[in-house]
């Protein structure tokens, strides 16, 4: 009984926002990329590198906003790699994404050594301002994430740019015949996904904490992908799904289940993702041209 009360407590629900923040940001990033037709499984690596960049930026001058700037740049860099290899060189998008993830893991640990002279955890750095609501820390980035949801929705469904991006993800040839520059928009969309994933990482290191820990993304980039799929590639749907996963993580961290060992509780978000992907909550269809590189005139 107590467990159930705990699970419905206000502080837990508020904590869900905190845990959901990186998922919301990364999922929105994923939506940009996939709606334009480019699969991006490198959100994880972009998030990790963004987290590191944020910590490093903050350490340079003690200003966490420098960290945010660095995280955005980091996201752009990795986004550019993904865009270049996938959109321009038309390589296999999943393979490239995996490469970026491996790259991020190695690079961040390497840079920890080279820039901070440490093995696993960076020194403490200045963190972003936050508000305390009912014993839960709400960082600035959480607000950013929440505001972005309606903004992204408006972008995709009420602006001409959003219309163009949606069309090239569904039927790039049709857009091409109307003069829409398919590959250019895809490149931009992938860059955007990098920026958002980088911001997600910034939340992990300097929004929610004050340091970078190796491999701190811990699979969140993939959970964000699952949120995107579960949310049917719609900003509001992805938001809802991210909140669900955030809640699961909050429960795993804060609630004591008498009959389940705590080590296994930490696996709940991952188990939940599989359950959702097994279609227990309905089928999800991606944008029709998702994952297929576009070459002019090849139709």
């Amino acid at each position, binding site marked *: 009984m107590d467990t159930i009360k705990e699970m419905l407590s206000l502080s837990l629900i508020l904590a869900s926002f905190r845990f959901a923040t990186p998922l919301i940001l990364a999922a929105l990033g994923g939506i940009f990329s996939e709606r334009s037709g480019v699969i991006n499984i490198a959100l994880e690596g972009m998030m990790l590198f963004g987290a590191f960049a944020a910590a490093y930026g903050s350490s340079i001058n003690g200003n966490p906003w420098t960290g945010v700037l660095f995280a955005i740049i980091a996201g752009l860099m990795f986004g550019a790699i993904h865009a270049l290899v996938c959109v321009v060189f038309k390589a296999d998008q999943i393979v490239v994404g995996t490469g970026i993830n491996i790259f991020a893991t190695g690079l961040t640990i390497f840079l920890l050594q080279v820039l901070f002279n440490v093995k696993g955890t960076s020194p403490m750095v200045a963190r972003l301002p936050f508000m305390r609501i009912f014993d839960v820390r709400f960082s600035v980035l959480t607000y950013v994430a929440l505001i972005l949801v309606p903004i992204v929705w408006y972008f995709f469904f009420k602006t*001409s740019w959003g*219309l163009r991006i949606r069309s090239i993800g569904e039927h790039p040839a*049709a*857009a091409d*015949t*109307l003069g*829409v520059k398919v590959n250019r928009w895809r490149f931009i969309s992938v860059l955007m996904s990098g920026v958002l994933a980088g911001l997600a990482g910034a939340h992990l290191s300097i929004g929610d904490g004050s340091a970078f820990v190796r491999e701190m993304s811990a699979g969140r980039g993939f959970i964000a992908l699952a949120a995107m799929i579960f949310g049917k590639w719609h900003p509001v749907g992805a938001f809802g799904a991210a909140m669900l996963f955030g809640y699961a993580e909050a429960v795993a961290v804060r609630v004591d289940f008498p009959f389940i060992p705590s080590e296994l509780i930490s696996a709940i978000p991952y188990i939940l993702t599989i359950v959702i992907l097994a279609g227990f909550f309905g089928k999800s269809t991606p944008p029709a041209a998702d994952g297929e590189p576009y070459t002019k005139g090849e*139709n």
Partner: protein
Amino acid sequence: MSREENYILEMNNITKLFPGVKANDNVNFSVKKGEIHALVGENGAGKTTLMKVLYGLYDKDNGEIFYNGEKVNLKGPQDAIDLGIGMVHQHFMLVDPLTVTENIVLGNEPRSGIILNQKKAKDKVKEISEKYGLYVDPEAEIRDISVGMQQRAEIIKTLYRGAELLIFDEPTAVLTPQEIDELFEIFKSLKEQGKTIVFITHKLQEVKAISDRITVLRNGKSVDTVDTEDVTEEDVAELMVGRQVLLEVEKTKANPGKKIFEVNNLKVSDNRDIPAVRGVSLTVRKGEILGIAGVEGNGQTELVEALTGIRKIESGKVKVRDKDITKFDAREIKRESVAHIPEDRQKRGLIMDFNLQENVILGYHDLEPFSRNGIMKYNNIADYTQKLIDEFDIRGGGMEAKAKNLSGGNQQKLIVAREFSQDPEFLIASQPTRGVDVGSIEFIHKQIIERRDNGAGVLLLSADLSEVLSLSDRIAVIFEGEIVDVLDASETDERELGKLMTGSTIDAGGEDSGK
């Protein structure tokens, strides 16, 4: 090089190369302002390529293009659009989940900054729609509207951008005879408004019905340009192929035997769980060809997938030789001596990245002599493949060549070779000559008739009415998932079939019964 004032378009010495293919070889093509000009040729002659070069989708390798007397350099569709050239493609360039209006204004949206002005867009669409008599529902999503409306949306798309020269690529491929009449009325209306029309087709009756002049392409080269009233269909056919062509298939009367295939009240759903086949019953006997005539999208695809074990059957029965195969899967059905030429050869009929050998055994790969006890016997497979290449004259590079490197006609011959060589007792042939050159068409038709004469039963599905009429002994018409009527082939014609294909069983105006 004349640059007369009344020529809106001149394409001179256009050459376009692709890997392994000279699609356009020094082609000359000129269009007069305000005329309806037919561009004809058999499949693979280079018509679509030429128009894609004009529209900026392809870069030409050589030649010059003049529009309204001025030399132009088209680097992309936007250049063509800016000039006033609009193109309605064979496979519609429409984005399914978006609305008619969104599709029409995409890339050229009325907006303030980046914010869409959705009302203005809708008004513009309505304006054009009314001016040219092109009825569409602006708010409907593309995936929910009819093929006819989709085509009208495509036309509005070009007019929205101020097109003066409209190019139509095989516009009638997906229409019934009545819808084709409606389209030609639209052509006339556009012509009256001063537009120029080029339409690509390989259907000769259409050319005679509506065009002012005809240009014929053959093997990538331009053969001749003639005034329509000066030529007959046979003349044009001869120009297209280079020799005299039999427009009719030669066949003797059928001698049907026992029932070999039976379908009882079959119900099948499509990918969206909507009923596509709504209670179809058919019988085919040995030694006869039953043709199914119908506009694409009336359940034929789902019907064939169900009969060949690829799609679930909701209710009803299917029998081969009185054996109930309703619950059989694809492999088991094949083993009952049922062969299948699928309508989409690239998606279903072949593994494009496999070579000829591995494709020739697809579906039979676990049988002797191709394999034994799960181990492949590639020596036997190689011998068999060579035999088929020789017998069916499959060209494209030998048995190690990958299927994707063959031409459409040779790919189809490969599939035919594979299925026919298994000596099936029952054959389902779905769009067997779509996108295939005339020589291969003749060959495939002959093969099908031969099978029938050897005692096989054949179920033929085709959107090409003349093919259905010339090959079939009996014809069933399918409309919205139901069989509307079954007729003797010798006692009907295209007009009547066309009416049945749209669901009417009597004439609208109560006029003659179409015989």
